[in-house]
């Protein structure tokens, strides 16, 4: 898919992190970006707009990234919407829990743009 046409949803309660992820995506050529401040806000946006990729934090008020992932996977209308978890949680059981919830990949903060690119590319190539 053409990076310019891909629509990203960044979900993070930290405005700093949302901005850093958005800037990193822009340097990678992805300019169509929408932000949500927690899982609940993201659900509202997912219900009203179509997205091609979700990048979500884990620890958020109202609705966590894990709950958001479970919600997306439980709704057939979202199909195989790619989900990349970007979080500070780096314990093995955290990674496994995220995998069980069916995230496509997992990045531990602090991340670098090359790692972000690597994970996005890996997800997109695995989905064909």
């Amino acid at each position, binding site marked *: 898919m053409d990076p310019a046409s891909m629509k990203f949803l960044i979900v993070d*309660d930290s405005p700093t992190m949302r901005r*850093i992820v958005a800037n990193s995506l822009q340097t990678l050529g992805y300019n169509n970006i929408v932000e949500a401040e927690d899982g609940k806000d993201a659900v509202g946006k997912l219900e009203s707009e179509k997205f091609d990729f979700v990048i979500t934090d884990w620890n958020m008020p109202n609705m966590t990234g894990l709950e958001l992932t479970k919600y997306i996977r439980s709704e057939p209308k979202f199909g195989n919407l790619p989900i990349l978890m970007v979080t500070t949680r780096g314990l093995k059981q955290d990674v496994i829990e995220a995998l069980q919830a069916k995230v496509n990949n997992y990045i*531990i903060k602090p991340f670098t743009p090359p790692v972000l690119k690597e994970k996005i590319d890996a997800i997109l190539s695995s989905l064909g």
Partner: protein
Amino acid sequence: MKSGQIEKIIRKVEELKALFIFGQRVMPFLEDLFYFVQEIAPLLDEINAQLKESSRKMPKAASQLSKVTEATEMATTEILDMVDGIIFKVNGIQTNLNRFKSYSDLQDDLSNRIQKRLSLLEQKYPNDPDIKSMKELWEKVDQSGNILDPLQSSQNYMNEIRQLSSNIMIALQVQDITAQQIASVNHLIESVQEKLSTLLSQLDSENLPELTEAQKVAIKKVAFDSNAVYTKAGERQHIADEIISQVKSTPSVDEIVNEQKEEQVVETKKEEKKTETTDDFDIASQDDIDALFK
């Protein structure tokens, strides 16, 4: 009086006697206890007052920590604005450099064409001093007009500035991580405050003052990871990647979960044998994570 009644009275008298003996023995201890309580009472009052004072200060500490998070968030936003400004200006300079490059290419092309014409004129009029002089002059112009090297050097600098700006942006992730650490400390303070309040209400009928509205607003309820740490990017990612590659190489995530449980049981047994405790966490590397997702 019957003999049975006399025996009963004697038994009661003996019991009374035993009670007096016990009282005599206990009396010095009771005196000690009395003096001890007399001495300890002011100390208990002091502890009570200190607890009350610390407990009153806790909401202020929590609110000040929340203000630190707000301040760092504002400062981070300002730095990000500046980094964005730098990148915007660098891109502007890059556009100008590209224009210079195009101009330089055009100049090279024109220069080559003029050189060729002058060479043809020189062949046609070999003894014309003006043509010879013009050709020499143009060669000097051509040599002095070479701006490609400084252009290339400037472009390298621009790339370095861009990379440094990106590094600043990445380092600013520390704000999110410290905000979570502060939120974790605040949570801890709140828990201690709660316990102290309970303790104080049992010691003293006077209740502690409730949090003011300003304090409630200042202490933001935020979601946090109490284990959030700022490490060099990539270190923890490797462990996470390894987990992912493990999961990817096995038929299901559940198998890995079961393996993890078995490992935990074995580890628990080992720990029981050693009768040691540890606070170490099982940290995932990026390689672990990658292996799960392959």
